[in-house]
């Protein structure tokens, strides 16, 4: 498997796993995962439904005991030092939720008290977070009556009461409209700016690209690729060259010379020929031969595959879902 270790040394990792395994029944939901999340970074765990992302987060948040391998948060083992790990983390997820019967303010106050804040400090912290997340007007409303976007913000606020060093966000924007999603992205960026380490899971490459410099792509319990968004793009398809002749009659000749120069080329819709562009020199080579054959070009461009294409290529989800 392709496994680029993102962080260099263990001491800089806020989260680190080695050979992490979780079985459900006979199935390996998480099948030997190595992760290194550098302290202070935003790390994206990307994958389709059922890839094992949530299971990893639940193990890191001490909710689920691993069946194999090790996991550390802030250098502390999540099994042996579970209680100490809980002092470091915040969790917002599909499953970690607030108490619907209580108001937004009561929820945040309760968590503050559970985190051993004096009553006054807990009240102040609750009000501060309500303000930050634009929930002051709804502070006294029961969480049950909140809209989806408000709920998500309250969930996030609840995980921030104790100012965690490491924040786990399990699909934080699933089901949110684009406006609410952008708001939430802004909050995540601000947290990262202030030094919080964020590990977020998502099904959307767009989200991973918008927020993170480090991405690990998961499929069926394994990490199948990792690196920065740019690295991932190159890893899969790299840059491509696309040209269109003025005269469509030149297409076969063009395709032949590009195939020879680039190793592969194919005709596409609207009279274009595309091929992989491994090195910049190949571009000049193609241009020289086009000039030698006196083919007039109407259009020429280079492009990189979108991360969504990369994702689909890596996980093979395209076949089933698209």
């Amino acid at each position, binding site marked *: 498997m392709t496994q680029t270790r993102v962080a260099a040394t263990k001491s800089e990792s806020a989260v680190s796993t080695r050979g992490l395994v979780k079985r459900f029944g006979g199935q390996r939901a998480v099948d030997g995962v190595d992760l290194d999340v550098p302290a202070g970074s935003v790390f994206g765990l990307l994958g389709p439904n059922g890839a094992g992302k949530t299971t990893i987060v639940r193990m890191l948040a001490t909710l689920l005991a691993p069946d194999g391998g090790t996991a550390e948060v*802030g250098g502390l083992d999540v099994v042996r030092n579970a209680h100490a790990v*809980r*002092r470091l983390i915040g969790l917002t997820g599909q499953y970690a939720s607030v108490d619907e019967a209580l108001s937004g303010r009561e929820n945040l106050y309760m968590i503050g008290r559970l985190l051993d804040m004096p009553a006054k400090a807990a009240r102040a912290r609750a009000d501060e977070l309500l303000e930050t997340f634009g929930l002051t007007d709804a502070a006294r409303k029961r969480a049950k009556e909140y809209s989806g976007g408000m709920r998500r913000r309250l969930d996030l606020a609840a995980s921030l009461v104790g100012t965690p060093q490491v924040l786990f966000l399990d699909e934080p924007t699933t089901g949110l409209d684009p406006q609410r999603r952008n708001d939430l992205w802004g909050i995540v960026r601000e947290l990262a700016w202030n030094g919080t380490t964020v590990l977020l899971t998502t099904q959307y490459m767009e989200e991973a690209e918008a927020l993170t410099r480090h991405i690990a792509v998961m499929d069926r319990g394994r990490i199948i690729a990792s690196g920065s968004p740019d690295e991932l793009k190159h890893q899969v398809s790299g840059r491509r060259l696309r040209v269109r002749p003025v005269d469509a009659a030149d297409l076969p000749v063009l395709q032949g010379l590009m195939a020879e120069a680039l190793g592969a080329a194919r005709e596409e819709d609207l009279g274009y020929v595309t091929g992989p562009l491994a090195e910049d020199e190949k571009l000049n080579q193609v241009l020289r031969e086009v000039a030698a054959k006196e083919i007039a070009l109407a259009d020429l461009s280079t492009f990189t595959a979108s991360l969504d294409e990369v994702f689909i290529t890596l996980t093979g989800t395209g076949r089933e879902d698209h």
Partner: protein
Amino acid sequence: MSTAEAGLARARGAAAAGRVSPREWLRHSGTMIRRNLLSIKADPEELVDVTIFPLIMTVLFTYVFGGAMKGSVNGNYLEFLVPGILAQMLTFGTMYTGIKLSNDFSKGVIDRFRSLPIARSAVLNGHIVAAMLRLLIAAAITTGSAAVLGFRVHTSAPAFLAGLGVLMTLGLAISWVAVYIGSIAKTPQAVQGVGQLVLFPMMFASSIFAPTNTMPGWLQAFVKVNPLTTAADSARALMIGGPAFHPVWVTLAWSAALTVVFAPLAVRAYRRRS
């Protein structure tokens, strides 16, 4: 970057502190009790099962069966019924604990609490203490309304309180059964279903609503060992009068047995559920 590292280093130092202290345990449990009481305040329907329902039963049974029953209960059915209704409260009043716990699991609230550095038992403590308080509130409302209908305690205030004490002891024991069911059932609806399936026969095949001496022998065999019978008989003896030793003793034995069996089962099921 450096602030994040410094934070992690600090946390590693704090890790040596480890588990929660008794003071923290008390505060965490107290916060959880408060949480449950707030949810009663926000959702007074929660109290319906343990207040309005017994009230309706008291009024209906008194006026529907009261006259016909007069002969077999020494003339005053209300006196017979009210201690029984107080025992009946223990059933649905405690089942609510299981439903609420199950709801916490299915809504993800338990996950939130488990990701916090708090005493693991605090959530259960909150539910169980709140259940006891709910029962007390319900007992006060039921006794008060019964007094309006003409119910009077014939013994003494301490005996009346002792009667309540015996009922609460059994209520605490049944709460562990409810916590167990709440931890193993997949949904709150399942808890309610299982609860009703078990509780309805137990409630009617007892001395709660009617004297047991006219029931057929096979039923009496069950009725006699039913803890709701001994609980109702205890409350009757301590509030109205009569021999109290035997029913009280059996009720307390039941409470001890249920607690010894179900408290460890419940805690284990709660811990294991992910």
